[in-house]
């Protein structure tokens, strides 16, 4: 369903978001049937596109969304469920819209189950090998062929995000053949395009998420797209396609400090740097402050001084292991903490840089 349609003169951005929050007939070997985290991720990404996407060179013109909410309480406009037929139909509408001009930007985002074999395959809601014995992989599509097929689309900037596991199917499962189709046919004459393909995790690895909340990768991606990885270029804060790799840095820092399970996104097929988003303000950064044992107790308070520090003192947790401090901009900050019984830690002075940084107190 096209949930956004705005008149845009000239170059525009066209987006297609898929969220599969439930797989009624998924074989248990391939993962849980309830995947409300994927629905939450897709809705969060679509929400960001609709409300916060700031690309002055190509504003958002259309946004297609297909969504199987599952247990996620979706309250947006009515949309089609994420069956393979609906995904194909809406992909075609997205492709046709983006294909109108070489100056367009095309954004494809998928959240759901995935399998990595000789290539990466993504699963629609009606993936049901038990009842499709003649074509067990009906309901799946090849992400790699879809990528090659997007080479037919005139849009010179294409962003493809895949929030899905890339684990292998069990050895006794009928593995996908080489003939599983993509959403578009590969072309031998692709357009010249800057088209990074960003997977939430490496091949063979799972992607993590908690039920009902956007998954780790999508959280980190939205953090980056909100400007956390932006750089000042030609007098303006700008985020380009080359900055998308920073999503890996964000996830690595978060996971290193046990905010999310460890996973490494994979940014493939990128090699250029095309300006994408512009921000009026410097990027917001985040300091993750780990307290020394002396003050690591509920009731401890953190005081921060610096150019973009929050006012007042910040209480510890939950969880009681760290403070997450949003800072208006990067710079040199001084951190000090007071424990519940007056114990002191710090002051510690650190230069905090985007997108996020850990401070040991």
């Amino acid at each position, binding site marked *: 369903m096209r949930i956004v349609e705005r008149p845009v003169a000239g170059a525009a951005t066209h987006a297609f978001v898929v969220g599969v929050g439930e797989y009624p007939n998924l074989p248990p070997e391939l993962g849980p049937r309830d995947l409300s985290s994927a629905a939450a991720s897709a809705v969060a990404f679509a929400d960001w596109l609709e409300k916060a996407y700031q690309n002055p060179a190509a504003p958002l013109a259309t946004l297609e969304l297909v969504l199987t909410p599952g247990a996620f309480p979706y309250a947006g406009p009515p949309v089609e469920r994420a069956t393979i037929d609906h995904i194909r139909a809406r992909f075609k509408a997205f492709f046709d819209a983006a294909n109108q001009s070489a100056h367009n930007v095309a954004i494809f985002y998928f959240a759901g189950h995935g399998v990595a*074999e*000789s*290539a990466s395959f993504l699963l629609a809601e009606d993936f049901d090998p038990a009842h499709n014995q003649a074509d067990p992989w009906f309901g799946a599509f090849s992400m*790699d*062929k879809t990528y*090659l097929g997007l080479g037919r689309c005139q849009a010179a900037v294409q962003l493809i995000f895949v929030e899905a596991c890339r684990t*292998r199917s069990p050895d006794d499962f009928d*593995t996908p053949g*080489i003939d599983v189709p993509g959403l578009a*046919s*590969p*072309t*031998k*004459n*692709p357009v*010249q*395009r800057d088209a990074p393909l960003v997977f939430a*995790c*490496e*091949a*063979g*690895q*799972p992607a*993590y998420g*908690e039920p009902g909340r956007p998954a780790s990768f999508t959280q980190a991606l939205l953090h980056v797209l909100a400007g956390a990885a932006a750089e000042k270029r030609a007098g303006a804060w700008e985020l380009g396609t*080359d900055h998308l*790799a*920073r999503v*890996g*840095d964000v996830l*690595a*820092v978060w*996971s*290193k400090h*046990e905010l999310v*399970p*460890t*996973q*490494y996104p*994979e*940014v*493939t*097929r*990128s*090699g*250029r740097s095309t300006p994408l988003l512009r921000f009026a303000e410097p990027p917001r950064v985040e300091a993750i402050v780990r307290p020394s*044992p002396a003050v*690591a*107790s*509920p009731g401890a308070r953190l005081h921060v001084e610096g150019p973009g520090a929050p006012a007042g003192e910040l209480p510890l*947790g*939950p*969880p*009681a*292991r760290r403070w997450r401090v949003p800072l208006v901009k990067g710079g040199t900050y001084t951190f000090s903490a007071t424990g519940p019984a007056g114990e002191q830690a710090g002051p510690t002075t650190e230069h905090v840089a985007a997108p996020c940084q850990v401070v040991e107190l």
Partner: protein
Amino acid sequence: MRVSSHGLEVFDRSLAPGTPLAYTIEGDALPEAARGVVRIGQRAELDLQPGVYLVTLTHPRLGRLAKRLEIGHDEALVRFSEMIEERRSRPTALAPEGLDPEAAAAPRVEAWTGRPGAWTPDPTCPALAVADGQICPLPPVADWGRVFVLRHGEQAVAVRIPADTPRVDVVVSRSGRTRLRPAARDPQADALLDYMVGGYVVESATVRGGADARQLIDRERQSPAGAAVGAYYLLRTGEAVDVLDDYAALAHNFPLVPDFWVTWGWAQLHAGRPGVDAADAFLCAVDTGVPLYREGLELLRDGIDVLREDEATPADRREALHAALLRLSPLLRALEPDCPVTTWRCGETPDPPSRRGRTNPGP
């Protein structure tokens, strides 16, 4: 695994009683994570208030497993299969039973050799002290052709380094990730490769993109591996068509290097040349062997996919491409994603013995 407010018990019939497992229990009701070692069949005494906890076990065979649990006054029984396998589970999964899992937290890199289930520290390769953002050359060992497990803290990389690799670097990014990088005798190529696969390593700051890539291609004789990196880079940026003759020269000067057949095939496609020529280049690549770089193997798959579905490709080539893709599939399936050069996950045997020769039949 049985968890209650009093303690943690772990059962596993496949492991000998007494096998140590490291555990970590975290939750808002705990000021800091509870850590310790519980042995199979024995109980670790704990005092947990009712609440939500994340229980992580480092299991010698299954790796690192985690489960979020609500612990009330009743005990919770959890099967290992219900636990999430965490990334970087391989160090202890591959290490011999009885290894102290807590030792994995040591901030150093150490090499282990052997095979899954029978790993031993490599005496020829002393442990390396490393820090974030560093690149350290691994001391040379007797035979790079073996499989190594590189451990750094709780991370590990299991990789088979090609036997003729001149040097292997351990790369620790500022975000704490550890990778192995077989060096191509050329710092410029190494930096460009780092930029292509991650973009976050210190040396990559010096990368000049296309200019570097062109220089690498020009220095093909000194470093064919570096030239391959340059060729892959220009394919990504769409600049390959500007130096098409160089791509042809690479393929014909180094006919036994499959990477150059792959890059030549794709350069022809980018230039809009007939698909049949590219198909022949891809078929040459498959017959020559396995590309040195992972990027090459994936590009080979993509190139074959493009042409075998193209109606303009002659029927005999489509048939040959189909057969080639079937041969490549097990190799692609077993690719180790951590390593930019083509290597397989530990324990995989993707290429069973075959009578088919691995010599280049020529174009």
